């Protein structure tokens, strides 16, 4: 399915999308209702105890840190924080759920009624067809701004619950239950604190869905609430999607899409599903309300084929815990602890350093990167912030990517990067040399100044030395001198190369150029 098919469909149909985003509170260290550690993987059933195994008579004790993290997440997304809240039991039988009920929240979530701004730029803007205001849609109205648009997406609620264990189906294909001969259960994950965020059906395009999920991920990362790994499943995004004819007010029949394990998968799965639903409607068929599974290899969604009965979860208040009553002062004290959030940081970088919006947003997307940038600029000064940004988004980003490490683990520290920028700016080394110094510093952890010293890389700006080198080159290449003087000025590049070779790369290119033109002319 090409992108054009989606755009074609969106000409006639409007998509209505809501997301459910589950995030494990990996920052909580221990599970939601017991003292077992929170971690990924490990030998099956080694991080378990009577509570998270649902052994008879064991009781849950709420993890206060996890509740605090959830309230912080709510505060960071403009939610109302409940003064009175409680857990409910959500009841259904499944082998990955030790008690055969999940302690979750029902009508009294910790956080509700929030909102985040989502910015869309680049090719994804094309998916939003009502920017000119011609097509009337309900839901939030996008605001057109430089190179794209911004739209507020509502958050219905953020509640806290416990994660389930993991099933491994043995004997079938690809670990799926179909054809499996038996199943194994690993309860290491069972009881991990899990935040569930439910968005309003305010999202109108797959690109907005992706941007919304990315925005939330960056907020969670800045808060430090979770490592938000979509591969390891600590952040999981499910989507509800329906389509309706442009101008129609009633919602169409929705499907729920699961197994979207990356932001790209989220976009592509929703795009596929919109086109699939449009094809059904175009053919006069009905969309069936069901849960569908995204297959990233086959690049399509498929129904889970299980008899999807309407679940009655028989929610009722969890009697093993007393309800929570929060003081407004406590909530205010948490609000005061909120770190600078990505949007605010991005806007500050634009205002203070005149960075391009996209660059600023990337630097502000997580606190480690933001802190690195701030620390670098602290040393270089604001007038070299742009260079710091270029280094971080260029060589440093490439290095981190190649080595698969976090910015905090890079051998090149903010102080070293600032030093390197200073060496370029005061003309000690050329930009090309700086790249070599960076690479060496990244490998050895040596200070850029020391590397320059040790390698004798100091750029020569001394006019006398350059004049001597230029004189030698001109003397050795009379034919080229002749053609330059005859008007073929493009040979200047040849002379620059020769002079630089003569000077073993250490000549200041700007000065070399100037001296060449003077002595040739």
């Amino acid at each position: 399915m090409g992108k054009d098919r989606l755009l074609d469909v969106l000409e006639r149909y409007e998509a209505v999308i809501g997301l459910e985003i589950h995030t494990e509170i990996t920052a909580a260290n221990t599970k939601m209702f017991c003292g077992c550690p929170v971690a990924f993987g490990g030998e099956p059933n080694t991080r378990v105890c009577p509570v998270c195994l649902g052994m008879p008579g064991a009781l849950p004790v709420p993890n206060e840190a996890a509740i605090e993290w959830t309230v912080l997440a709510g505060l960071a997304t403009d939610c109302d924080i409940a003064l009175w809240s409680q857990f409910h039991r959500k009841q259904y039988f499944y082998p990955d759920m030790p008690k055969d009920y999940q302690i979750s929240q029902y009508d009294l979530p910790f956080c509700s009624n929030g909102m985040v701004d989502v910015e869309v730029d680049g090719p994804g803007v094309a998916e939003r067809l009502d920017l000119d205001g011609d097509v009337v849609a309900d839901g939030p109205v996008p605001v057109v701004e430089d190179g794209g648009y911004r739209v507020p997406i509502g958050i219905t609620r953020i509640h806290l619950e416990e994660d389930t264990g993991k099933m491994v189906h043995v004997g079938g294909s690809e670990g799926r239950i179909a054809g499996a001969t038996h199943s194994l259960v690993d309860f290491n994950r069972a009881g991990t604190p899990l935040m569930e965020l439910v968005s309003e059906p305010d999202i109108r395009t797959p690109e907005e869905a992706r941007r919304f999920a990315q925005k939330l991920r960056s907020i969670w990362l800045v808060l430090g609430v979770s490592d938000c790994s979509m591969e390891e499943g600590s952040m999981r995004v499910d989507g509800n999607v329906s389509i309706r004819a442009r101008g129609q007010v009633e919602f169409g029949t929705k499907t729920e899409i699961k197994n979207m394990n990356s932001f790209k998968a989220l976009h592509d799965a929703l795009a596929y599903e919109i086109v699939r639903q449009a094809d059904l409607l175009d053919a006069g068929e009905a969309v069936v309300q069901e849960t569908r599974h995204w297959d990233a290899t086959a690049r399509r969604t498929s129904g889970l084929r299980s008899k999807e009965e309407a679940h009655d979860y028989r929610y009722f208040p969890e009697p093993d815990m007393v309800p929570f009553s929060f003081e407004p002062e406590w909530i205010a004290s948490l609000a005061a602890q909120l770190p600078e959030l990505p949007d605010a940081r991005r806007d500050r970088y634009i205002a203070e350093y005149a960075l391009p919006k996209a660059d600023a947003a990337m630097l502000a997307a997580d606190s480690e990167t933001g802190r690195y940038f701030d620390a670098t600029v602290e040393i270089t000064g604001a007038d070299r912030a742009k260079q710091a940004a270029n280094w971080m988004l260029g060589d440093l980003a490439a290095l981190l990517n190649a080595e698969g490490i976090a910015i905090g683990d890079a051998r090149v520290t903010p102080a070293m990067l600032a030093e390197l920028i200073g060496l370029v700016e005061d003309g000690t080394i050329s930009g090309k040399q700086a790249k070599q110094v960076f690479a060496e510093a990244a490998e050895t952890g040596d200070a850029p100044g020391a590397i320059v010293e040790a390698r004798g890389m100091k750029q020569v700006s001394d006019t006398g030395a350059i004049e001597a080198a230029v004189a030698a080159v001109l003397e050795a290449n009379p034919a080229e001198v002749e053609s330059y003087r005859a008007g073929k000025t493009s040979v200047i590049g040849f002379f620059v190369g020769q002079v630089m070779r003569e000077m073993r790369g250490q000549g200041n290119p700007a000065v070399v150029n100037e001296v060449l033109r003077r002595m040739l002319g």
Partner: protein
Amino acid sequence: MTALDLSALSARQVRDGIARGDFSAREAADAAYARIDALDGEVHAFLQLMPELAYAAADRVDAARAAGDELPPLAGVPAGIKDNMNLLGTRTTCSSRMLENYESVYDCTAVRRMLDAGALPIGKLNMDEFAFGSSTENSAFGPTRNPWDLERVPGGSSGGSAAAVAAGMVSVSLGSDTGGSIRQPAALTGTVGMKPTYGRVSRYGVIAFGSSLDQIGPFTKNVDDSALLLEAIAGEDPRDATSATEAVEAYTAAVEGGVRGLRVGLATDILEVEGCAAEVKQSVLDAAEVFASLGAEVGEVALPSARHGLSAYYIIGPAEASSNLARFDGIRYGHRADDAEDVLDLYMRSRAEGFGPETIRRIMLGTYALSAGYYDAYYGQAQKARTRIIEDFRSAFERFDVVLTPTTPEPAFRFGEKSDPFTMYLNDFYTIPVNLAGNCAMSVPSGLCSSTGMPMGLQIIGDYFAETTVFRAAAAYEAALGFDTTPPLVRALAR
């Protein structure tokens, strides 16, 4: 054969006798097992005996005494444990096929505290399956018989705990009380049973029936022992989020306080309930007279919403139970059906095979009451009734220190007599409102029924965390009444 007779000694006397060197903790254990040998073939109070654990505990007590150490408050006291409480090294069956072979993987807090106070874990006691019942007839392993009359039930669900104390097989035992499961069997067996305030004793490790109703409490032969055992097991537990943070009072010190000036309320309106035997009613009126004669200020109190207790309880209790029992699914532990076709088949057959009829009835009741479309009409209404009952007690305790009712409408009935579940449920009419409100209450013997010779019980209800007051009232009444707690079966042994 040892000369020690646990029927003739209180728990305190056993402990003090060991401390003095009159006899050893080993001899106390011997006495318990000898009595079990003699009578439990008929009574069937025990599901499991733990002589290794009991004698190891006895040896620790005897060694401590030999070393001249101060002995803890329950040192060497033979104790029984209702079989819904976990203890490492034991099976915990809840009298169910579902858990017939289930071995505990950790200790119940209350049991641990009782054993840390020096008690000897003699054995695990029979009960109605998962505590659903008032007669132990719902045990998958056969009923317990009442030591006062082997043709009659000992009450339930903690019938084994009651019978073992009544028959002198142990000095004390632990039971659990969700709607009367301690107080009702205590009344039916002439023993003292205490249901503490909700939250007073940790629920960690007792297999849950109704999480908002369950409390563990002591069975003893007298009020002083009850205070002694509650003092040992009560208190905050970080493993139970509903356990109370209030400090545990010195209950035993309060027992001798007397009732002069105590405001005693007689719940007259519910005395007139249909099915309350005339003699039971009279015993409560007599008890009021006893309190008045001891200097208490006796008045009348109404509990108008108590009548709704039974209906509310049979929604809330089963609703919570249906959820709490979901985990018995055949996946991780407990009974698992053979050759299941798929996971749904495994669930359905394991549960159908593992659970008895009353358990299945409660699960179905509770599942229905929580179902979409019925929740407000059942669970919601029941919660409203519960709030009204809480308000009844609140206003009662503004005027009174304790409230008197019968523990049960009638003394022990014969096996099979109450085959209709609803008439069985009526047996808990007086005890259920207390669980719904969360107050503390105890049952103390109030005499023998003249026609049957069976014991009757007086229920003394107290305000939240007013256990001290309840013990004080109960001790004064007990002393005035002078009830002999020894059943004929035991007297016949002595000959």
